[in-house]
């Protein structure tokens, strides 16, 4: 109740402040003609950034924000492959801050993770990052301190290739997706610790049962027996979030211009704290040409899901002089944001209705029943101890024998007994839509991979949780519990399998490296990524060449999962240096 009244007060104050806050940077202003030329873009070899406190508002609601150079999103930084750049970051906050250059290959001490790569930037101090630009593509930057990223501390990076860009376009727009709450992220996390389902207002109800919606009684009983909620798609939802495109909510309708017939490149970055989005432009197919800043062989689709911290570059070619909606829908369908591509400012495309909230299935619980003789149609038994007479591992939601190295305890409520490789699966909620949906298996890198050696070592990492207690970890151990670093030898090639023992997708990010996702038989063209969204109850494998010496962060990019402990330090050392 206190929060409600607080929100309202903020709202009144905010309404007054809204006109004062020119909160959006020039590149993100509505009605932009695109990036060539774009005002207010930071380029060159010396760039100054100042982190400070401001207000930010959308839809008439405004609250405290943490901004860079006074704006949300932060300025667009546009660099050139092969250059060197110095970025002087001044901290005007009353707390420490930092900037992590997400996806950029930099020396570890320039990676910007306080406590891992450097000490952080104290109030009043300036820290100068200095590194060569060794790549091209679409990336982003954000704070790695506190939860500042959830409060506006994020912005896009575009790096032009040294040579000819294999992606030719007549115009480009940067699309930065975000979620924004008036409530401080620490309060959001506290609420989740107090009540795991706090923000979920799309649960199954008795009224729904009587109306014939969602699961039938038997399924509800089965899931209730396991204390699992099939509507638990997102932790923080549209009940508190406004979803943003380039700092604009649906009412502000960010609009990017085009001329009919042009090839328009959209550089889409998901800078959300807690929201995976479904992206589509109804009536306009998209050709995906890049993912996580790495070129992929062009592939056409109608919709894709973008995990937090991923980026996708797509080409669209609108031929008619009409407005197209760019729809970013939260995967739990608790909200969406519409932006517009149009020949002129002021045109609007229709806003589609939110689609029905998806329900999780047994496959999302790591019990892939396909092809199994289930007897009584998939009866689940959780009360049986591990070595009981059930058919193998198939029906257990917590069978310690499937993960012998994961310590059991309050933080591990479930283990996927039969995790399926879900790289070719359509993501959560898009299983049955009646148009094309991109999967990871559709991604093939354009340039051949430099290192295609067969790994000499393999490593399983379990993504573990207790959603009711809101505990998140790797291998059942939170970073704060004194987990050892994950150690690599310099230049060794390791196959890593991420096994999702939870019912939520986890966008897992490794700093300082790109890995090659195992999506096909041809290692030469497996897509290179810095972040991979592991679907619920599934697994994903990638090959990693540990080519970057130093200490690096490795974590779930759901900000509150990371802060709950779903993180590790990764070390890369010359073999002879290791203790």
């Amino acid at each position, binding site marked *: *109740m*206190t*929060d409600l009244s607080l929100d309202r007060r903020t709202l009144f104050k905010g309404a007054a402040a809204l006109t004062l806050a020119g909160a959006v940077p020039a590149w993100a202003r509505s009605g932009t003609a695109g990036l060539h030329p774009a005002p207010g873009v930071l380029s060159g070899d010396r760039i100054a950034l100042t982190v400070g406190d401001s207000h930010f508002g959308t839809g008439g609601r405004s609250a405290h924000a943490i901004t860079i150079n006074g704006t949300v999103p932060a300025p667009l930084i546009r660099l050139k492959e092969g250059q060197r750049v110095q970025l002087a970051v001044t901290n005007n906050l009353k707390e420490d801050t930092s900037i992590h250059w997400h996806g950029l290959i930099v020396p*570890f*001490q320039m990676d910007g993770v*306080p*406590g*891992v790569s450097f*000490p*952080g930037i104290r109030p009043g101090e300036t820290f100068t990052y200095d590194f060569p630009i060794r790549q091209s593509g679409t990336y982003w930057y954000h704070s790695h301190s*506190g939860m500042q990223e959830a409060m506006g501390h994020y912005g896009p990076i575009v790096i032009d290739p040294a040579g000819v860009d294999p992606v030719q376009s007549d115009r480009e727009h940067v699309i930065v997706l975000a979620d924004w709450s008036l409530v401080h992220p620490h309060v959001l*996390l506290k*609420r989740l*610790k*107090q*009540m795991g389902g706090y923000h979920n207002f799309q*649960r199954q*109800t008795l*009224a729904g049962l009587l109306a014939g919606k969602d699961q039938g009684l038997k399924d509800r009983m089965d899931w209730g027996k*396991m*204390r699992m909620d099939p509507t638990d798609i997102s932790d923080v939802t549209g009940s508190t979030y406004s979803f943003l495109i380039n700092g604009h909510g649906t009412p502000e309708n960010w609009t990017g211009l085009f001329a009919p017939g042009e090839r328009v490149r959209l550089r889409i970055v998901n800078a959300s704290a807690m929201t995976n989005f479904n992206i589509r432009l109804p009536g306009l197919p998209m050709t995906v040409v890049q993912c996580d800043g790495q070129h992929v062989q062009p592939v056409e689709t109608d919709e894709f899901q973008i995990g937090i911290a991923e980026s996708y570059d797509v080409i669209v070619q609108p031929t008619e002089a009409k407005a197209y909606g760019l729809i970013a829908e939260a995967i739990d369908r608790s909200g969406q944001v519409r932006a517009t591509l149009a020949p002129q400012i002021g045109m609007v495309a229709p806003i589609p209705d939110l689609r029905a909230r998806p329900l999780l299935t047994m496959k999302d619980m790591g019990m892939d029943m396909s092809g199994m003789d289930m007897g009584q149609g998939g009866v689940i038994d*959780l*009360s049986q101890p591990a070595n009981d007479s059930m058919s193998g591992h198939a029906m257990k939601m917590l069978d310690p024998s499937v993960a012998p*190295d994961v*310590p*059991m*305890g*309050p933080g*591990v*409520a479930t283990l996927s007994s039969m995790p399926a490789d879900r790289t070719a699966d359509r993501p959560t909620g898009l299983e049955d839509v009646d148009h094309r949906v991109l999967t990871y298996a559709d991604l093939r890198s354009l340039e051949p991979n430099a290192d295609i050696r*067969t*790994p*000499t*070592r*393999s*490593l*399983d990492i379990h993504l573990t949780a207790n959603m009711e*207690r809101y*505990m998140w970890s790797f*291998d*059942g*151990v*939170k970073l704060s*519990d*004194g*987990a*050892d*670093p994950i*150690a690599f030898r310099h230049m060794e090639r390791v196959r890593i*399998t991420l096994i999702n023992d939870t019912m939520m997708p986890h966008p897992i990010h490794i700093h300082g490296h790109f890995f090659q996702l195992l999506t096909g038989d041809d290692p030469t063209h497996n897509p290179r990524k810095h972040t991979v969204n592991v679907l619920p109850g599934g697994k994903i494998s990638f090959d990693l060449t540990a080519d970057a010496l*130093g*200490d690096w962060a490795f974590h779930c990019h759901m900000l509150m999962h*990371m*802060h*709950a*402990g779903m*993180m*590790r330090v990764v*070390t890369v050392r010359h073999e002879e240096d290791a*203790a």
Partner: protein
Amino acid sequence: MKRLITSAVLLLAGTAMPALAQDHSQMDHSAHQMPPGQEDAASDQPADPHAGHAMPASDDGVPRGVAPPVPTDHAAEALYDPAVMARARAAMLKESGGMTFSQLMIDRLEYRAQKGGDGYHWEGEGWIGGDINRLAIKSEGEGDVRGALENAELQALYSRAIDPWWNIVGGVRHDFRPQPQRTYATVGIEGLAPYWFEVEAQAFLSNKGDVHVRAEGSYDQRITQRLVLQPAAEVNIAAQDVPELGIGSGLSNIELGLRLRYEFAREFAPYIGVNWERSFGGTARYARAAGERASATSLVMGIRFWF
């Protein structure tokens, strides 16, 4: 009698027993061990825990291999002041799972309309701590709106998560009313049973040597996203007569409630409902002898709020 108590505890805690038997030593010992790099490098997880196991994951021809030893240094300390790095590292570790949270929940604050004099009742709990270890206070009590406070108790508890669903609690309870006041030592278990039942059971040993057991359960049936019907039950059992408190040996009383609340916000929900309680055996006889009824039905209205 002892058998009755034992079986009641076992009945209510039954679902939690496998958990009690589990090895939960893994979860807390490491809380004090930071920074991580100073742990014994050869000891546990990432340093190839899989060697020697027959693991199914490597069905693609990639060997498990041998992981390098975990370095004992921190790379950034070669470039930045180690003392400054240590401070930053400690803050980072704390923010990666080691934060402290709290909650104060007034589950019931209600007016009870009933024959023979309306009453009031409260029940709430507060806690502070991490995921595993918490300090908690609990309080409940009731009285007559025109008369005296009849029951008032306060508990101070240590709570420890022992498995995904269950916590054990231990501590002290003091009853300010009725007179004479009593202080109890208590142990118990609480958690979430299959089918989403909130369950707790506590045993109490008083400073006079009396033994009591209390078990409670409730279930939240969501009718809509904000309208929740909550049936609840409480059973009290005594191991002996305690005449000065009006408690008879055996099943002393049962309380059943049905409350319908509307969550204007998760933290704020007014409710209406009915509450029925009845004393049994010796407790009922003591009540009648004192001119009180052995059972009472009340219409209740109140609020549930927390922060």
